[in-house]
């Protein structure tokens, strides 16, 4: 009997793993295809360590946003406010730095402000029972407006201290190879991937996205989980905002307009389903890198901007179409 139980357990693990691998195969092949294509088209410039460093740095903001967004999308929600929240976090960070506060404090304030936005999203969605689309659409406007108000409708010049080093392409010490921000993104993605797969919170996120009524029936604290998930998404948008500040070295209230759509696209390309119940952090990372490589490759090969926009749009639709086929 023990042997039988072990066997089923082993099979269970294998089954889970096989499914996950299969779900990631599509986006991963897409990524390989894009990298391969541009490697052929522009071998010297595209296939260089320097260029890969560049792309990695360019991916950090969307990548961090996508980590939080994956939780939201897995739970069957959506957060349209992340672009604005990124701007708000970068403005708050810049403001505190300008006032001579310690960088750590400024970063903390920026991230917490963003987390607060997420918390408000979650509370409005669960308490007032308004659909996430509307609540976060409202937050999109409110956070952007608040960022502009705080910044006096101007960009904020502030000393960047070590924050600028977060996104540099020549990091110190040299053995880091890529910017500390890139490492930060990878480590956080790894950790949150674990949280999504191996914690009660993660399982509940999947359960809520898969069948909210069932989750409620089984005693899952649905509202509580949702609040946590949206707050988490806000926190990650805040981290992305800090990175945005590090990159621009100014607090710009008009930055990251429309970034939420890139972030959602990354999650969806990576196998996330807007109907909920599906998605993975690894997939979202692959999606984010796919879009970065595509934009970078287009720039390197001199593809006009409008063609690039058309291609990215087509890829999003194709990714979802492939996903539908896989489910048939």
């Amino acid at each position, binding site marked *: 009997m023990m042997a039988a139980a072990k066997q089923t357990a082993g099979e269970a693990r294998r089954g889970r793993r096989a499914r996950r691998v299969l779900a990631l195969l599509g986006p991963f092949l897409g990524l390989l295809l894009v990298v391969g294509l541009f490697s052929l*088209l*522009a071998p*010297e*410039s*595209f296939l*260089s360590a*320097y*260029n890969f460093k*560049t792309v990695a*740095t*360019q991916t950090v*903001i969307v990548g961090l946003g996508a980590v939080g967004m994956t939780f939201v999308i897995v739970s069957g929600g959506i957060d349209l406010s992340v672009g604005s929240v990124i701007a708000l976090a970068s403005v708050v960070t810049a403001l505190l730095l300008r006032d001579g506060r310690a960088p750590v404090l400024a970063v903390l304030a920026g991230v917490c402000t963003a987390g607060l936005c997420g918390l408000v999203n979650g509370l409005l969605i669960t308490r007032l029972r308004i659909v996430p689309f509307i609540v976060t659409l409202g937050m999109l406007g409110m956070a952007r407006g608040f960022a502009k108000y705080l910044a*006096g*409708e*101007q*960009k904020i*010049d502030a000393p960047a201290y070590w924050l*600028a080093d977060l996104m*540099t*392409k*020549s990091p110190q010490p040299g053995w880091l190879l890529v910017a500390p921000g890139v490492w930060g993104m990878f480590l956080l993605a790894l950790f949150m991937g674990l949280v999504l797969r191996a914690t009660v919170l993660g399982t509940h996120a999947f359960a809520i996205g898969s069948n909210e009524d069932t989750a409620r029936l089984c005693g899952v604290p649905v509202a509580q989980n949702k609040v946590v998930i949206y707050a988490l998404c806000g926190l990650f948008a805040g981290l992305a905002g800090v990175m*945005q500040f590090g*990159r*621009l*070295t*100014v607090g*710009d209230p*008009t*930055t*990251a*307009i*429309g970034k939420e759509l890139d972030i959602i696209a990354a999650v969806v390309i990576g196998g996330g389903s807007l109907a909920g119940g599906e998605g993975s952090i690894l997939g979202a990372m692959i999606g984010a890198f796919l879009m970065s490589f595509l*934009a*970078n490759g287009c*720039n*390197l*090969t*001199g*593809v*006009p*901007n409008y*063609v*690039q*926009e*058309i*291609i990215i749009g*087509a890829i999003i639709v194709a990714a979802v179409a492939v996903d539908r086929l896989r489910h048939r």
Partner: protein
Amino acid sequence: MKPSVLRFLAVLPLLLLAACGDDGAGGKRRIAVIPKGTTHEFWKSIHAGANKAGAELGVEIIWKGPQKEDDRDDQIKVVEDFISRGVDGIVVAPLDDKALAPPLSDAVREGIPVVICDSGVEWDGHVSFVATDNYRGGVLAAERLGTLLGGNGKVVMLRYQEGSASTMAREAGFLATVTGKFPGIDVVSSNQYGGATTESSYKRGEALLTAFPGVEGIFCPNESTTFGMLRALQDAGRAGKVRFVGFDSSEKLMQALGSGELDGLVLQNPFLMGELSVRVLVDHLEGRSVERRIDTGARVATRENMDEPDVKALLAPDLSAWLK
């Protein structure tokens, strides 16, 4: 509809291939020219000028703006990607006087010389700064407006956007001159920003006109604020009744100048800016010494002089020869 979509998808790879065909163009020098955006007339003139210099000097011009118009982060990405691509030189019109400094430093570190055009940046690694003397442009505008008003009256200045060095210099030049040279003129508002788009300038213009009904003179420091304010004046039925001096040109602004709704337009010479930026960069690459600061000049177009050939060339440049 379906076949056309299919046809388009079939053409996409060809577009890609055609686009990269340029890459292997022999031993030609490749110079990247990065504007703030790609859709405005102003940038098209710069593009044409750069193309002219490129053709005459035998260098390849790669024209690439940020994916999203006026997005700082996207412009940084374009600079970074050109560094990766390993071009011979970069001409850039920075969207921000600070944010662009780190990537431009990266470029210089990778051995790529940089010419700044149009707008300044707080960074001294550049080969040369080719731009209108914007402060001087503001002075010209102030002189025109002050003369028209006879040295008296209430004046409004609608600013463009904080962080845009070129327009800030114009605003400073205007303010210093109008208050210094014309003590009878009262600047009733100079703290409002029109923002990036015509639409936002339009709304701000409407608000200003409502707040200051007695205003007699207006100055706007670029094309979008000028046009937005013009629309607001037209809506309020006050176009032509208020003395109005703007900056840069477009089809609509030219008409307004002809009909007397605008009393002056300070014109830059973007075509020359594009051309000189490339020339100065090539000079540098070929080891000649170059000027650190090059002024491409500005002059005021009025209803009276707008048909003179050299003003006309600035107002409505014929770019077709240089833009395919």
